[in-house]
């Protein structure tokens, strides 16, 4: 066994150290694998970043109430009467005065211009109260000040500032017939709320002719389990036609829309892998052909065909792993942390950052290994079957 292993090791070392003799073909194989891995990781980093942005937006102790079947905030409408009934539900946390803690919110679409493409996009503008701030973790004013009630003032999320033109502090923006002054910017720790513009809710209702209606209400629960009691109460009340879920579940459902992109990313990568596989096979067949004399000489000396097989396979795997590493590094350098925006479930832009995690790198490594294994196994079998007589033909 030791002898076999030492034979295999010698052949592996010889193959790897002679890669320089086939440098261009080897580089082509490395490049092909690198591109495939980079593409896969870019797709996965995008979905990972998007999912994390949405997941980070939701709290387990905040319930979001929308009109039944509305699926997103944009499609929901709640009357003041409905809100008054819902806020009597059990399990809602109370403030020092014994009043339920809740935030009725307005959610409208306004226009924005994407910096990277110059295209017009939908941006979400939220009418919110001071309680709405308290219901969101990590919210902070990063520059300027908070909007004042009764005034056409907005604060913009850091994501909006980064991705869309014309929202700098102090500027005045026009939405339809209304004008709004940007008085501050805010951060919510990188989650989806940073893709929004926030204004005083009653002012927004007035300027957008929404009367006393809202889109949603958020309520603070005493415990996460209280959401079921609240949902039960809503279901049993014939006056209410509502959905109640925790904010965490709400955003998780929105994130599921991205599952299709993950599958698409894998399909694209697998198709591209076929190309990389062809490159790897070509490189390895050429390698075996170039080293036919060496392989046959070793066999003549007494080396086993197993060593020729594993030596060739190892070369293929090494090239693929190098390609995978290069692809992963390229993704890391150019994609990790890259800010982008895409259409969310409410037909508005969600700003997110590409995020590469260890799990994603492992996916890339497995893809590279797969290409190396499949691309090496057939040439390796050819190497193992190579007639020893080749050594006597001066094929060195």
């Amino acid at each position, binding site marked *: 066994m030791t002898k076999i292993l*030492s*034979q295999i090791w010698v052949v592996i070392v010889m193959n790897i150290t002679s890669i320089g003799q086939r440098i261009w073909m080897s580089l082509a194989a490395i490049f092909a694998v690198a591109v495939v891995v980079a593409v896969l990781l870019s797709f996965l980093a995008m979905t990972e970043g998007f999912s994390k942005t949405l997941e980070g937006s939701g709290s387990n102790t905040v319930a979001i109430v929308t009109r039944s079947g509305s699926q997103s905030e944009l499609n929901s409408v709640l009357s003041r009467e409905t809100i008054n009934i819902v806020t009597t539900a059990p399990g809602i946390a109370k403030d020092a005065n014994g009043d339920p803690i809740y935030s009725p919110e307005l959610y409208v679409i306004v226009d924005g211009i994407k910096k990277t493409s110059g295209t017009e996009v939908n941006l979400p503008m939220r009418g919110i109260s001071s309680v709405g701030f308290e219901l969101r973790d990590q919210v902070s004013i990063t520059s300027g000040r908070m909007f004042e009630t009764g005034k056409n003032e907005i604060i913009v999320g850091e994501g909006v500032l980064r991705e869309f033109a014309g929202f700098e502090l102090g500027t005045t923006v026009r939405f339809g017939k209304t004008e709004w002054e940007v008085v501050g910017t805010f951060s919510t720790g990188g989650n989806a709320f940073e893709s929004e513009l926030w204004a005083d809710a009653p002012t927004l209702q007035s300027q957008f002719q929404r009367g006393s209606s809202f889109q949603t209400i958020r309520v603070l629960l005493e415990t996460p389990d209280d959401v079921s009691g609240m949902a039960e109460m809503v279901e049993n009340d014939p006056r209410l036609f509502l959905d109640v879920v925790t904010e965490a579940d709400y955003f998780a459902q929105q994130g599921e829309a991205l599952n299709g992109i993950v599958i698409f990313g894998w399909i694209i990568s697998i198709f591209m892998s076929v190309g990389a596989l062809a490159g790897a096979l070509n490189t390895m067949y050429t390698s075996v052909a170039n080293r036919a004399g060496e392989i046959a000489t070793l066999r003549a000396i007494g080396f*086993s065909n197993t060593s020729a097989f594993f030596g060739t396979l190892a070369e293929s795997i090494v090239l693929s792993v190098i390609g995978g590493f290069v692809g992963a590094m390229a993704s890391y350098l150019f994609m990790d942390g890259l800010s982008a925006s895409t259409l969310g479930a409410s037909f508005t832009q969600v700003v997110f950052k590409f995020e590469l995690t260890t799990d994603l790198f492992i996916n890339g490594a497995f893809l590279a290994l797969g290409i190396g294994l499949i691309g090496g196994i057939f040439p390796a079998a050819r190497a193992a079957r190579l007639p020893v007589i080749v050594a006597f033909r001066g094929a060195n």
Partner: protein
Amino acid sequence: MTDETLYSLQKVSKGFVKGKEKITIFDGLDMSIEKGDFLAIMGPSGSGKTTLLNMLGGVDQPTGGEVWFDGSRVDKLSEGNLAKWRANNIGFIFQFYNLMPMLNAAKNVELPLLLTNLNSKQRKKSVEAALELVGLSDRAKHMTNEMSGGQQQRVAIARAIVSDPKLLLCDEPTGDLDRATADEILEMLQLLNREFGKTIVMVTHDPAAAKYAKRTLHLDKGEFVEKDLVA
């Protein structure tokens, strides 16, 4: 066959099919090689001398007859067992040296020892001894592509003898060398035969090279033409 017989080919035949044509190379060939012999095999192209060398080296199998080596029949061995048999008994010296360009001289010479049970220290000692014998002790760490053709063939000889095989098979060992260097290599083979008792079979086109051997066999169309030299 006597105790002194190292190799014996009995009624060996060898042929292959090319297209629809069946080509016969040997048909009932008999041959015997004694221990300590230094045999040159000559013959025109297509006479079968390389095929004979391949069969003697266990890299090609006869289609009929029997091949005996040191009292054991070897023509029925499996591919795996033949590889082990070659590792234990045969040292190859090729026309174009067949060294591994990515390894230095010492590592090239060490290759056959990786198939033995010797530890690293023992292997190193054997490699040093083999390189000293061929006069290349001072070039052990040199890459073989930095060496002249004669030096490369010396490394190849060191590789062939390092595991102390019973038989050295040389395929045109001086075919790629100038006359003076060729003479040096042939003198070395002669020394290995005379002083160390190595049995050597050398295929060559060169009559001058054949003169270094103890005896010469001429092959023509798959038959030895000087019957008195054949056992």
